[in-house]
Structures are given as C-alpha cells and as structure tokens.
C-alpha cells in the first residue's frame, strides 16, 4: 500500500513542483509589468498604422515612459491605404459604446459622422485656446459648433510645377487657373511638355478632392455652411467644374478621366507634364534620381484660384478623437494633448513625413533642415479646405463621385449638377 501510495504520489509531487516553478517563473515575468501598471489608469488608443522610421506604437511607448499616471495601450488598425477597413473597424468598436478605444485617430471626413452619432466627445471643456492650429483644420474638426476632434497631422492637395519651364517662358508661378491654363497650353504648343496640366478625374474619392479645390477657389461650396443643403448647382460651382471639363483635351489628356493619384504622378515625374495637382507624397519621389526625370527642376505651392477667389487645397489627414463613452476622460485628454503637442507633432513630421497642424512648427530650424519640403507647405496648408462636413459624408461622396464624373464625361455640366444637387439635398436635407 505504501509502495502504491508513493507510486501515486511521486508524479503528483513532480507535477506540483513543476507547477510551482512555472507559476513563480510567470510571476517573475509578469512582475515588472504589474509594478509599472500599479496605480496607473489604463486607456487604449486606436489608430491606423502609419509607417516611417518608427510606428505609432513607439510614440505610445514614449508617452508611457514620460509619466507614471496613465498607461496607453495601442490598438493597431489597418494602414491608411485600407481606409474603408479602418473606418469599419472604428465604427464597430465605437458603436459598442463600451468606452474602448478611449482615444482614436480619424480621417477628417469621418469627424462629423462620429460626432453626430454621439461617439465623439466634444472637447470644448478641455481646451479653450485653439490658436496654435491651422484654421482650416480646426474647421474640419468641428461639428455643430463644437470641437469634436483635436488636430493632429494633415496633408492637402497642392500644385507641382516645372520651375525650369516657367523660367524658360519667363513666367511666375501661376496664381489663377486661367494663367495656369495659358502657360500649360503654351508649353504644350512649344513642345516643352506633352501635357499642360495633370489631375485626377477617376470616379473615386480623389475626384471629390479635385472638385472641392476648384469650387472653393471660385468662392463656391458643395454644401451650405450648416451642411443641410446643396450649393453644387450654383454658378460658382458649375463654372469650376466647367473649367475641369474644358481642361480635358486641351491642357489635360483624356486619360485624367480614369486617373487617380499614381497614374497622374507618373507622367509628371517622367518630365512629360508642366503642372500637376497631387499630395505631398509626390515630392520625395520627384527628387529621387532613380525614378524621376525632374530632380531639382520642380517646385510646389498653393493651387491656383479663379479671379476674385483664393487658393483652396483639399484637407486630408488624421485627427484625434475621444470616445464619448470613455470612463477615463482626464487620462484620455492627457494622452491626446500630449500627442498633439508641438514636440510630438515635430517628431511625427520628422519620422513619418506627416505635416503638422500647428503653423508655428514650420519655423522650426531642425524641421526645415531635415524636411526642407515641409517648410514650403505652410502657405498650402493655410488654404486647407474641408470636404463637405456632414454626418452623411459616405453617401455624399458616392453621389459626388458619380455626378461629377457624369458631368465631366458628358459635358452637360449644368444639367448634371442640377441632378446631383437634388440628390445631395435628398441625402443631407
């Protein structure tokens, strides 16, 4: 019996020892983490994953190390190129209304929708002074008069031009669309450039951006200020779309109708175009001798405007939001204001190449030295114009893409804009 007992107990002792050792091991491993989290408020931060010399995870780690009150966990969403998936991911989490994620970053076009759904907390109680940010960005961060997002980083549409061809023509950088069209036409006729002006007319989100820029630079708008009625059938908007239409076949190839960003960038960096409307990502490509024929020959600046209007550039970029259902508002705000502070915006500009939403940073010596192109963006960002601010943006943009594409293809601008305007009124009214 004793032998049977010991026979039974031996493995049980072994198992117990093993378990004890294992538990001790796990405890040791878990200890530092637990000690660190002791007494700290844990919150989560969901964001699309941008890549650069570091990740947003590194940014979050720096915050966690910088203080001992709040511990942020980074919830990684897909990259910004899969923006539909990022949107779905955020909507699914926010719709649960359980406070996760406490803080999130959102594309400017989602801000109104998240605010109207009651998912994003108005931030006015935390911040009274917003003078440090670009006005256009702040405008895009507001819904119903309240600030529901904190500006983070931005990108806008801009005009790329061939400085060498301008010099050859003895001309300045064009200020109006008419000047640009004349210069582009002349360069085409002289054989200096195959295409005067390259832009994006594909039935896609980018078409809405190109249209917003043209319309706003003619003192027009897609929606009224309150976001509840359409202004796209007004003469200013019609004239702007007419200009885009008339450029096709004269200074722009018919191909713009199927081009989004990359197909329009390629002829420009191949030295075949005089002017290009695109985002800031084009600059480093255009300066890379391996892929570009125009190294050192180009400049970038604000887009042209119509007579009596002023330059407008379509605003893009991700801004910070606080979950209305968060249980840790103060901790969430502490993280948000830290990540949007000048030092962190500078770090994001240096390491990710994403444009700061604070104008003062464009005077920063280190930033100007390491990212000289970014310094030139200040006047462009100053003209940043939001796409229609409405909680129904997803429907509005699909209607715009379809309606503007029809107008550009058929040439019946007035009729197509009238139809589109009715459709928009139905959606936002």
């Amino acid at each position, binding site marked *: 019996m004793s032998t049977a007992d010991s026979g039974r107990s031996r493995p049980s002792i072994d198992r117990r020892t093993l378990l004890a050792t294992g538990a001790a091991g796990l405890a040791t491993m878990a200890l530092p983490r637990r000690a660190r989290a002791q007494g700290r408020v844990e919150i989560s931060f969901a964001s699309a994953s941008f890549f650069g010399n570091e990740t947003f995870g590194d940014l979050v780690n720096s915050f966690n190390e910088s203080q001992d009150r709040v511990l942020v966990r980074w919830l990684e969403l897909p990259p910004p190129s899969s923006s539909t998936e990022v949107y779905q991911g955020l909507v699914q989490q926010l719709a649960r209304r359980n406070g996760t994620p406490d803080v999130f970053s959102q594309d400017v076009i989602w801000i109104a929708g998240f605010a109207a759904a009651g998912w994003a907390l108005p931030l006015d109680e935390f911040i009274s002074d917003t003078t440090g940010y670009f006005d256009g960005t702040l405008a895009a961060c507001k819904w119903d008069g309240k600030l529901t997002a904190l500006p983070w980083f931005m990108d806008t549409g801009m005009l790329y031009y061939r400085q060498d061809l301008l010099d050859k023509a003895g001309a300045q950088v064009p200020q109006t669309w008419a000047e640009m069209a004349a210069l582009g036409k002349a360069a085409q006729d002289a054989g200096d450039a195959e295409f005067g002006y390259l832009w994006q007319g594909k*039935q896609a989100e980018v078409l809405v951006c190109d249209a917003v820029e043209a319309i706003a630079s003619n003192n027009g708008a897609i929606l009224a200020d309150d976001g509840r009625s359409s202004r796209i059938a007004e003469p200013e908007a019609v004239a702007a779309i007419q200009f885009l239409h008339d450029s096709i076949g004269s200074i722009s190839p018919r191909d713009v*109708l199927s081009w989004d960003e990359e197909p329009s960038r390629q002829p420009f960096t191949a030295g075949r175009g005089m002017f290009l409307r695109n985002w800031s990502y084009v600059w480093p490509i255009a300066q890379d001798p391996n892929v570009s024929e125009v190294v050192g020959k180009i400049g970038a600046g604000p887009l042209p405007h119509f007579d009596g209007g002023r330059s407008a550039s379509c605003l893009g970029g991700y801004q910070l939001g606080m979950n209305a259902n968060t249980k840790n508002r103060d901790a969430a705000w502490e993280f948000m204001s830290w990540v949007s502070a000048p030092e962190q915006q500078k770090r994001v500009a240096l390491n990710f190449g994403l444009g700061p939403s604070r104008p003062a940073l464009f005077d920063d010596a280190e930033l100007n030295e390491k990212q000289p192109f970014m310094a030139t963006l200040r006047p462009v960002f100053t003209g940043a114009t939001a796409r229609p601010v409405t909680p129904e943006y997803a429907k509005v943009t699909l209607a715009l893409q*379809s309606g503007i594409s029809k107008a550009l293809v058929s040439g019946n601008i007035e009729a197509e804009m009238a139809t589109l305007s009715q459709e928009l009124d139905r959606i936002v009214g």
Partner: protein
Amino acid sequence: MAVPRRAWPWLLLLPTGIALGAVAFWPIVEGLRLSLTNTSLITQSADYVGLENYAGLWSDTRFWNAWWHTIWFTFASTLLETLIGLGMALVLYERFPLRGIVRAAMLVPWAMPTVVTSKMFGWLFDGQNGVVNWVLLNLGLIGEKVNWYGDPDTAMTTIIIADVWKTAPFMALLLLTGLQTIPTSLTEAARMDGARGWTVFWHIRLPLLMPTLLISGLFRALDAFRVFDLVYVLTGGGPADSTETLSTLAYKELFSTLEFGYGSTITTAMFLTEAALAAILCLWLVRQIRRVT
C-alpha cells in the same frame, strides 16, 4: 438507445443539414431579414420597415443602371467565353506535338488571381503606356491613343475582354472533357460514310456536346453575374457609373456607407435575379437535353 430504423438515415444526415443550413441557408434568410429593416451602423437604427427598401430600390436609378450592366456583362462574357472555349477545346482535342504542355499552359490565365489579371489588363489597356494602344496605333487601326478605362463607351467592353481572357480556358477545359466522352466510333463511322470535318462537328459532336455546353454556360453565367474584382480594381464603377455592377454597388452601400438594411436589399435583389436566371437557363437546358437524348 432504441432509435427506430427509419430515423437513422435522417439522424446521419443531420450534421450535413446543420452545416449547410449554417453556411448557405442562414445567410440568405438573414440577408432577407436585414433587407426589411433600416439597419445602419451609423445611425444605429435597426427597425422593421416592411417593403420600404424595395420600393426605394424600384425607383433607384443607380440600381437599375447597375442591374443592366451586370446583365450585359453576364450575357456578353458568357457567350464569348463559350464560343472561344469551344474553339480551344476542339483544337486541344486533336493530336499534335506537345499537346500536354499546351493543355497545361492554357490553364495559366484561369489559375491567376483575378486581382493580378486586373492589374495586368490595367497596364495592357493603359491609355498612355498600354501595349494595346501601341499595337493598334502601329497597325493604323486607330488614329490616336484610346483611353480605354476613361471612356464610358469602351470601359465595360475592356472589362469584358479581360474576363474572357481569364475564363475562356476554363470553359475550354470543361468542354474538352465533354468532347472526350463522345465515342470515337461515331465519328469514325461518319468519316467512313464520307462525312467531312464540318459535317462531323455539326451533326455528331455538337449535338452530343450540347448538355456539357449548356451546363458549363449555366455555371459561367452564374459566376459572371457576381463580377466584382475586375471592376473594383480597374474602374471603381466609373467613368460616369458606366461600369457599376450589382456587386460593386452592394459593396459601396454595405461597406462604405454602412447601410446594412438597404445594402441587403440590393444583395437580395441580386439573389432573386440570379435565381430567376438559373431557373430560366435550367428549364431551357432540360428541354435541350431531352431533345438530344
């Protein structure tokens, strides 16, 4: 423990029934249920609205526009793929050197992921640098570069060409197996009686191949009806909605605007159209097969 003998077959069928019900039947019923609600992730509504969505669909020009495009795409691509596939099958049926390699190589387009095919055709038919424009220009068939994907007159045709290139080999494979089931004694006998190639094809091979031909055509049509990847990658539905199909429209409604209610109405309408298409083709098929056998 006493399971009646008669219950055993049903009991054994149960797991399959549950599995099929969960993956095939339930999604359809759920889609039908959603289509009768105004479910939206944005407004957080999920109320029963009866046939309101269907009434909206009936007067939705975007829907009918996409519906006609989808029908046209299905008809044109299936017809071309069946004819070209038949031609390929007849050639591959004959004996010639390296036939095995050619048969295998023929399947490469079909084995390629559609997204890769789409990107490839995007470049082939590129308005500026595309090889198609280059060839046609050099042959003098076109006066200037054609913007294939940017013109409503050519965009859908170009997508159909891409689909035919990709799927004709698959049709050829199906038809080849059909050809191989035709007894050689019949064709030999016909030749003994002096029948030429054309007569043999028209009076012996084609009638006997008809069942295979129709079934393959049916499969292909039902598959073509769901076209998504080519449109999504190449044109996104543009220009001017000229390549919008039901799948891309449903995708936009479901996943861009997150309107699950109305989006499900579109997919249900798609399901009904496809069911009607299948029913018509099946009836016709059964009649044809009865006639030849």
